[in-house]
């Protein structure tokens, strides 16, 4: 009976109402995409500098919070047009993210060059705390509403009639999907076509060899941290527009970690595919199997999905093969 409930019943439910299935899949897809964006920020930094950047999640919040906070300040000092204020705030936030990247490179990474990975990992923890405190100190700790209207982000939903049921797609989710695709495509082109992108790939392959051919590591690291700061900002805007901007958002960063081990720390396609697998798996599990074992399973389901994959591929789906020598 229990086996029936676990292995047969959910699939019967799926077949019985395909519209619900599609709705769940869509939600999983959207959540997965946002996970993928966070994972993308992790991967960019890990590839180029070998740093496991725990602060990526908080950078998402920090970016969104800075944007909203700056917008508030601008309207206070008398920038009357909301749209202008929003876009000035966006520009200023990008500048802030650049200085954050620059500061991280100069103050945190440079003195810690050549230290074991775990020390660098710990340093990003320090950074996380620092950014949480700073963000709350400057912009206040209460949740804020993302300025989605002023940034021309669409609102409302599209209802589609499929299989006799109604599937509703939030417009902001569609916009997020489009923007995420553009960003990934942009990054791919940046990595393969531009001089800096190629330098980045060289650094990812070998720090020493890259230094030997005259690539400046410092410069590359600032660029990488800036790039993942931008990714974080976009993620923050998207996620903030769906709910609100608050430090509760940092929890989603923990959700994105299984995406990383699933996709592999060094693979951009891995981050995307992993994100989608985790997002869809999580929503399906919560919706169809959740009632069986009690709700809230999405807090750990992703980790178990990732663990199952890891048992067969210890370096993640797309990770580089680990060759160890004694």
């Amino acid at each position, binding site marked *: 009976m229990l086996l029936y409930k676990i292995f047969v019943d959910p699939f019967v439910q799926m077949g019985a109402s395909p519209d619900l299935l599609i709705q769940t899949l869509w939600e999983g897809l959207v959540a997965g995409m946002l996970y993928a964006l966070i994972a993308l920020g992790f991967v960019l930094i890990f590839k180029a500098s070998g740093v496991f950047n725990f602060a990526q999640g908080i950078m998402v919040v920090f970016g969104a919070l800075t944007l909203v906070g700056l917008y508030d300040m601008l309207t206070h000092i008398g920038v009357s047009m909301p749209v202008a204020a929003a876009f000035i705030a966006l520009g200023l936030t990008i500048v802030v993210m650049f200085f954050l990247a620059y500061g991280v490179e100069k103050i945190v990474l440079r003195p*810690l060059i050549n*230290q074991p990975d775990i020390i660098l990992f710990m340093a990003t923890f320090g950074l996380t705390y*620092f950014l949480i405190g700073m963000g*709350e100190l400057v912009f206040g700790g209460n949740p804020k509403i993302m300025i989605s209207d002023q940034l021309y982000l669409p609102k409302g939903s599209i209802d589609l009639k499929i299989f006799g049921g109604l599937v509703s797609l939030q417009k902001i989710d569609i916009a997020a999907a489009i923007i995420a695709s553009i960003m990934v495509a942009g990054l791919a082109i940046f990595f393969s076509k531009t001089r800096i992108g190629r330098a980045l790939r060289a650094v990812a392959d070998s720090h020493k060899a890259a230094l030997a051919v005259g690539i400046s590591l410092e410069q590359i690291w600032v660029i990488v941290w800036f790039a993942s700061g931008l990714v974080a900002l976009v993620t923050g805007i998207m996620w903030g527009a769906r709910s609100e901007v608050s430090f509760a958002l940092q929890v989603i960063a923990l959700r994105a970690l299984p995406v990383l081990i699933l996709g592999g720390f060094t693979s951009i396609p891995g981050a995307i595919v992993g994100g989608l697998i985790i997002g869809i798996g999580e929503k399906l599990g919560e919706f169809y199997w959740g009632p069986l074992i009690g709700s*809230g399973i999405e807090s*750990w389901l992703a*980790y178990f999905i990732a663990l199952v994959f*890891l048992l067969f591929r210890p370096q993640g789906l797309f990770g580089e093969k680990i060759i160890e020598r004694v």
Partner: protein
Amino acid sequence: MLYREAGQFKTSYASDQAVFPILQDRIGVIVILLIVFFVIPYFSNEFILQAVMIPFLIYALAAIGLNLLTGYTGLLSLGTGAFMGVGAYACYKLSTLYPDVHILVWIVASGFVAAAIGVFFGLPSLRIKGFYLAIATLAAQFFLQWCFVRIPWLVNYNVSNAIEVPTRTLGGIAVTGPNASPQTRYLIVLSIVVVMTWLASNLVRGRIGRMWMAVRDMDIAAELMGIRLLTTKLLAFAVSSFYCGVAGAMMVFLWYGGAEADTFNINQSFFVLFMVIIGGLGSLLGSYLGAALIFILPILLRFVPPQIGLTIHSATVEHLTFVIVGALIIFFLIVEPHGLARLWQIAKQKLRVWPYPY
């Protein structure tokens, strides 16, 4: 000048292998033990005992547990908080199921329950390493925390869904529960922590500790030398979870007096990891130093501004604490990536050769 080992000859293997081979170290440790056992409990107020010393010792024990795993065996774990929770919930279940058995027995027994759970969640370590493993241990953290919330059997179907510590006595004196005096609880925590530290220091110097360190330095090489990875890694998980479990049980029974699932959330895991890294990976002394710094620092930050006449809004203090702790973590890592224990070693070396530079 005083700290010099000239003239102290080691004439037997036993003295060569001693934990503290230098006479001055032995004297120092005895003095510290005398102070913590006989001076502090009688000459300090309730606040110091309840809010500083008891938590410090408990966190030091948890940090030792994590240090055995991360510092000695090289397996990065982010599930410490959950293993502490397992200890706490196990102790609660056992002590309410069998109220007649001595509570100290259950505190130790709950460590074994935590060890069993730890071994189970340590299984992935045989296949995956490094940061991949760290994230895999997060599975333990989230899954166990979910269990604490969702399984009402664990809290004896309490409506509040929380642990309330029952009063247990030892020779007529209340040890746990609301009636226990801070002195009693402090002395019990102290005794357990001292004994377990002594056990750990002997463990890491012996055959097992050397096996752990060999695995840490390079597990494939260790395997080729005939060390069984399966047993070594799982043993590390078991011992580490045992320490964390006992720390968790003490945390609820001898410090908080009650707890809910959120007490053992992921921040607890990170907190202990900070202590281990700031204190020094692979050093028992470091676990104490790290626990002292990380735990006592926020308390100081909260109490210093009013003392010097600054009035800051309490929310601002909270935020400032985050900023300062974050900055200090980075600062300490930059100044001494090997932790406070390394600073202590350097200081010892300086003392030894004083007044000469080398």
